[in-house]
Each structure stands twice: as C-alpha cells, then as structure tokens.
C-alpha cells in the first residue's frame, strides 16, 4: 500500500515537472541598495544578443546604471510598454497606428540595428547558388509552384539542372518578427500574397510545415530534400546554411550580407519618416538586399520618470555611436550614418 501511494506520488510528481514554466513576469523594481538605478525593458528576441552585450558594456561605463532586458517577443514588449510595466520596449515590427493610439502616451521608435531574412533551401546535387525573384518566392509560399523544375524557377536560374522534386514550404510556427519581415516583403512584390496572406507576426499560411524558431526551420530544411524556408541572416551565416540571392527593386540579384543589408537602410534614409516607422523591404538602390529590416527600441516621449528617461536617452546616444561597433561581430548589420544622424536629432524630442 505504501509503495502504491509512493508510485502515485511519483507519477504525479513527474506530471508536475512536465508543465511548462510560465513566462517570466516582469517587475519594475526600483533602485537597489547602493544607489544603483535599474531600468527594465522587454520585447523582441531577435536583437537580444546585441542588447545583452550593450547593456552589460554600458554597465561597465556607468556602474550606477543597470538595464535589464527580457526577450519575451515583440508583441509582449509592446503590451508591457503600453501597460507601463516596463520602462522601454523593443520590437521587430513597428507599432501600428491602432497600437499607438491605445497607448496611454505618445511613444517614439528608435532603430538600433538591422537584420535580414534569407531563403534557405535543400536541393541535393545542386551546387549553384539559386536566384529568387520576389514574385517567385511569393508564388512558392502561396503553394502555386509545386516542383523545383518549374518553368518559373528555371527561367530565373538558367544553366542550373533543377531536379524534379516536390517543393516543401517551411515557415515559422511561432509568432515572430522574422515572419513579419518575410511577409512584408512578399506582400510588396505580390498583390496576390498581400490579399491572401497579408503581413503579421503570425499569418495563415496556405501551405507547408510550421517549425519553431530559426533552429526549427533550418533543421527542417536540412532534413527534407526539396524544402525551402526562411531564416534570419545572422542564423544562416553562423550555421553555414545554404541560401539563395534575391532580386531587389533595381533588378539585381543580391546575396544577403551585413553590407547589403546596411545599404538597404542607407537607400531608405532619404525618405525616412520622422517617426522611423518604416519598412525597408524591397528598398530602391543599388546593392540593397530587399528583405532587410530595422529593429526598434520604444520609448515614451514624455517619460514620467525623468531620471530613467535621461538614462535611456544617454544610453541611446552611446548605442548609436560606440555601440554600433559591437553589431558586426555579433552578426548584426550596423545602421548607416544617415540614419544615425536623424536619430540623434530625434532623441532631442524626449522631454527630460
């Protein structure tokens, strides 16, 4: 009998260990003893590696300041910022007009670094790097192109012996800024994609297999011959994943690199809106990689806490100057000078 009870207890215990941990809560803890000031932020996962480095480096410069960042996802960051449980937010997709309107006070966007998204594929025995016009990628993701030796793919890749393989579409299953950028680009180059799928961090995909995270998508692509998926440029570079070049608005086929992503931002700087809420996918200009995007830090224009407001403004100035040097070694494309200049001006708008 006792053993029986102990087994039931064991089973129950095992069941307990299986439940997923709840998302970490955030608190706006004030200063810790020793007059250290803590600033809390939350948001996008994509820039988490560089933000962590920035905040720890900045702490060495200003030992009295500690900035905490929780990478809970862009949506969560926006939600926590508007409910004022964190002091700053971070997002991979700019806030919508509706979201800005429902916020309790005006919020400013500040681009910090850039990222790109690349089409990764698995075609055994094809060594040439494939070229993808944007509308072709849209047709593939709509499920309209079923075979790799389809005429549309062959036309963009003359001289490549394309196999008679089924196209298997891999997309992200979790809500993600990467999906947002990918859909944003495909919607710009294909009206049909815009109408049938649209742009969001999660969309209703007409076809394919969903996998979680960059690692899930690339793992799936590696396993299924004939598959194509989209992953962040950083991830593809770090893991030696085969990816194709994409045709930009100027008609060139550009392979994603830190330089070609930065040039996409540079070419967009001329028409930069004052609030920096801009999509730079399908950017005009030579050498611009078309599936590029900013990632933003979100700050209240008139912070109620002036001390922390000043800290974040100082931090942003540092991040836009010295901080940018940390971008490339971590695989992020640094901001072009034109954008940095605009941002330094915009930082004056914060009422301190």
């Amino acid at each position, binding site marked *: 009998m006792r053993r029986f009870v102990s*087994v039931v207890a064991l089973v129950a215990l095992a069941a307990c260990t299986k439940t997923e941990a709840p998302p970490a809560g955030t608190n706006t803890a004030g200063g810790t003893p020793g007059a250290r000031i803590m600033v809390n932020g939350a948001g996008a996962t994509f820039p988490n590696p560089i933000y962590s480095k920035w905040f720890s480096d900045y702490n060495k410069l200003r030992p009295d300041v500690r900035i905490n960042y929780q990478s809970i996802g862009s949506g*969560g960051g926006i939600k926590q910022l508007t409910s004022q449980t964190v002091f700053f937010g971070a997002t991979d997709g700019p806030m919508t007009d509706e979201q800005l309107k429902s916020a309790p006070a005006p919020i400013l966007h500040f681009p910090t670094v850039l990222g790109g998204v690349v089409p990764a594929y698995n075609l055994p025995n094809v060594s040439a790097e494939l070229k993808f016009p944007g509308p072709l990628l849209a047709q593939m993701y709509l499920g309209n192109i079923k075979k790799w030796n389809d005429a549309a793919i062959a036309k963009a890749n003359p001289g490549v012996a394309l196999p008679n393989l089924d196209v298997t579409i891999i997309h992200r299953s979790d*809500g*993600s800024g990467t999906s947002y950028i990918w859909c944003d680009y495909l919607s710009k180059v294909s009206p049909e994609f815009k109408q049938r799928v649209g742009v969001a961090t999660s969309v*209703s995909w007409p076809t394919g297999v969903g996998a979680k995270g960059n690692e899930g998508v690339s793992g*799936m692509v590696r396993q299924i011959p004939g598959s194509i998926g989209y992953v962040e440029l950083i991830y593809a570079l770090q893991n030696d994943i085969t990816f194709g070049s994409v045709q930009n608005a100027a008609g060139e086929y550009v392979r994603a690199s830190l330089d070609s992503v930065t040039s996409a931002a540079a070419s967009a700087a001329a028409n930069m809106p004052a609030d920096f809420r801009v999509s730079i996918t399908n950017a005009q200009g030579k050498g611009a990689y078309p599936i590029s995007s900013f990632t933003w830090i979100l700050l209240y224009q008139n912070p109620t806490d002036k001390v922390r407001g000043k800290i974040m403004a100082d931090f942003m100035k540092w991040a836009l100057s010295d901080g940018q040097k940390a971008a490339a070694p971590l695989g992020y494309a640094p901001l072009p000078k034109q954008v940095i200049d605009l941002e330094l001006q915009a930082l004056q708008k914060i009422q301190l």
Partner: protein
Amino acid sequence: MHRSADDRLFRMTTGIFAALVLLLVVGIGFELWRQSLLSIEKFGFKFWTGRVWDPVSGEFGALPFIWGTLYSSLLALLLSTPIALGIAIYISELSPRMLRQPLSYMTELLAAIPSIVYGLWGVFILTPIVRKLELLTPAALRKFPLFSGPPLGVGMGTAAIILSIMVVPFTSSVAREILKNVPIAQREAAYALGATRWEAIKVAMGYGKTGIIGAVMLGLGRALGETIAVTMVIGNNPQISLSLFAPQYTMAAVIANEFTEAADELYLHALIEIGLLLFIITIIVNALSRLFIWSTKRRLVNIISIPPVVEEEKAA
C-alpha cells in the same frame, strides 16, 4: 477534550487544503472565460466549428486544433496501451524477481525526461526514420486516406509515436501496481480450477479492470495536454486530415507558438479561448472515463460479487 480540539484543528486545516483545489479549478475556469470574452462574444459557438485561423484578418476557428489534439491523443493511446499493459504484466507476473526493480525503475525514469528532450529526439532521430518509412510505403497503400500526402517525416504519425512513448510510463506504472494489488487468492483460485498461466493473468486483469482503464485514462490526460514535444514534430499546419503523413496542429501547440507575439486583443482572447476549450475537453474526457469506470465496476460487482477494490479508484 484536548484530543478532540487537535482533531478538529487537523480536520479544518486539511479541509482548507482540499477546498483550495476546488477553488483553483473553478478559478482557472473563470479566469479563462473572463480573458476570452472578446472572442466568445464575437464568434460564439462558431469558434468550435470554424476551420479558419487567420490572425491577419482577425478570423478565428478552433476546429483543426481540436481535431489535431483528439486525433493525436487517440492514436497515441492505440499505440501505447498494448505496450504499457505488456510491460505491466511482464513486470508484475512474469519477470524474474531480480529484474523487477530495475525494470520498474527504468519505466518510471521515462516519465521524468523533460518533454523538450523528447522533442529534440523526435526532430533529430525519429523524424528521419519516419520519413524513410513513409518513403517505403507502397503506392497501393498511399491511396488510402490514412497514408496520403507527401512523405515529410513530420506530421501526425510522428507526433502520435512521440506521445505514445511519453504516455507509456504513466499507464504501465499504475497498471503494474494494480496487478500487484490483486489478491493472491484470485490467482490461486484460477490455478485451482486448472487455469494456465495466461488464463490466471486474464483473471487478474479482469479483477483490476477498472483500475487499468483508469491507468489508460491517466495516459490520455497526459497526451491531451502535451505541448512542446508535439509542437516540434507535428508540422503545425491547421488542417483536418486523417493522414498520418499530414502536418497538423494541436490546441496546446498553437497557444505555445503564438502567445508571445499576440499583441492584438481579439487574437489574444482567441488564444485564451483555445485554452478554455482544452480545459473543457479535458473535463469532459475525465468525466466520461469516470462514468465508464463506474459502470464497469458495478457490472463487475454484480457478476463476481467481490467487494470493489479501494486502491483502484485512487489510481483512476
């Protein structure tokens, strides 16, 4: 006097703890309902039957997820129940004494492996194997809806296999204890009547039937709620298909996948309503299994007129 005061205090404390459980269940149900009001008001019952899940246009229907959850759990039970009962019978009835402890320990160890580890194993080891099997499936079989679609490796079949492995230790541990608690007189009586070993085991199984069904139901509850391991291998495509090859989706998986980025109110409420549906479905499944156990127990009592075994109820 002193003693009875102690008793009363003890009774009150434990009573409060018991009430807490009830409060928790009701509280969870209420909170899920309150946080999904927007979606409940907008879609009503159509949420249960809708097939479209489109965060962009704000249209939400949960049917593909409900289907995926029930179908994968059912398949997992079909796979796991014979294996789990086989393990239980071998350990409690047939195995050499020295193997008993290590074997029980090993099956219980399976239950302690975190589901993310099962998921990783599923992605890197199981999926390629399933893919190979799918490629080997003869064309004649591929015509059946059960085996239709391209061989991807990820999909309903892989999810069901992973789930069944995760469920086995739960079912087999409880079933084993139940078999162990069958009075020795039952078996001796069977042997006395000239029964073979197999027949004696059958008698023991019949005696512990309600408890064994309870063990299977415990496994079902586990399968319904499993999240991460399934998400990693099921393919996450909200479609309703009988095919084991087809990528599909479950309720727990869609919540885990989309919750972090759901900034829009209606979207968030729709996701929480999926949680509410899962809560309701779990309650229904549990209630049905109780009903089933209760009815078979009564029948058993009538046939062999043996007092019901108390332990078995606990396991259920």
